[in-house]
């Protein structure tokens, strides 16, 4: 394997900065692991944009290996979703960003580099909603049921923040190419609601439930860009 001079430089710089520098004293080959940046996209959101007329969206994913076990992780996305429900018909449109970390709990064999992780994210979304039509709920429809009321009202400048617990797996299927799946449970931290309507869908968070609870997942393909190698410390 090639190791570029620049990589060595970054490697030694990072090591000296982080104070992890260690000296290799014996002549036994030291096990090394690769550190770098992994970037990719969610293919579920991409595919759904083709088969679901009520959905358009994409999500870019990335992580950076900080230590042997910890990865800095982030997702960036945009969604447009029409929710045509029993009482309400509305479209939500906006962007989101999530940042946090993954902890790899999987002990790889030999030089495998798979990841089974649990992590946390802080998510933030900026979006707007259009209410197409709504129904009046009347438990005593003595004068007859009335048809849905056409609205077209726009609700701009909405924001929400939330926290996610993420469980994920990433498997290297070819050299440096990974497929991954993650499942998430979310909880709202802050939510700027519109007047006389509610944030029933938040880009990145998905459908909201009463009690500020949500779930999500993604199915990713990503590519690993190696930056440097680091020796694995032997257990004493």
């Amino acid at each position, binding site marked *: 394997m090639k190791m570029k001079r620049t990589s060595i430089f970054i490697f030694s710089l990072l090591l000296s900065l982080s104070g992890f520098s260690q000296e290799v004293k014996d002549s036994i080959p030291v096990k090394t692991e690769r550190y770098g940046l992994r970037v990719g996209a969610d293919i579920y959101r991409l595919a759904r944009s083709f088969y679901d007329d009520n959905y358009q969206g994409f999500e870019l994913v990335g992580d950076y290996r900080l230590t042997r076990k910890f990865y800095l992780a982030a997702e960036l996305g945009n969604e447009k979703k029409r929710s045509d429900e029993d*009482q309400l018909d509305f479209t939500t449109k906006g962007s989101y960003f999530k940042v946090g970390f993954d902890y790899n709990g999987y002990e790889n064999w030999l030089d495998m580099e798979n990841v089974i992780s649990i992590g946390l994210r802080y998510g933030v979304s900026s979006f707007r909603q259009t209410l197409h039509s709504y129904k*009046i709920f009347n438990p005593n429809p*003595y*004068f007859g049921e*009335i048809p849905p009321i056409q609205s077209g009202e726009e609700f701009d400048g909405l924001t929400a923040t939330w926290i996610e617990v993420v469980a994920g797996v990433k498997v290297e299927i070819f050299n440096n190419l990974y497929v991954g799946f993650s499942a998430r449970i979310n*909880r709202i931290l802050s939510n700027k609601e519109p007047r006389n309507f509610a944030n029933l869908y938040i880009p990145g968070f998905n459908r909201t439930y009463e009690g500020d609870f949500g779930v999500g997942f993604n199915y990713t393909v990503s590519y690993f860009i190696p930056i440097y190698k680091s020796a694995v410390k032997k257990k004493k």
Partner: protein
Amino acid sequence: MKRFLTALGLLALFFIPGCEKDDLCDEAARTTPRLIVNFFDFANPTTPKNVNSLEIIGDGASDPLGTFNGVSQVELPLRTTDDFTRYSLRINSNNEAFDNTDYLQFNYTRDNIYVSRACGYKTVFDLDGTSAYMLTDAEPADGLWISHVFVNTLEIDNENETHVNIYF
């Protein structure tokens, strides 16, 4: 490592109580209210008075709302597509010799208020401050059986209070 997983586990607990069912509209009290009318004795205005065989029909409805007997309170649905609702109130409807019909029309403005995902919106009503109601006699005239109408509140946004008193 173990401490870390314990911390994550505890954090996960934080999410669990948030899961609630929200796809059924619990219609009680939270949605479009009816007009609550109480009947009182005109001669003794603090005493509730029960109606005898009061047949109530709304203008534009296909069926009578019902015939009420031995009660001092009725709930009248208001129309959510117009700014007025007129009811025909026929007392003693079980006795052709003594029956008497009055018309009572309520005038209001409407607001549609968001309730929830499962319920959608509700309509609330604001009775007209200058002419909340119009009391008229039947054609041909048979005299008014209702002596006096009193509006307790102009805001009709729940069913927990009496909106209108009728004295007879």
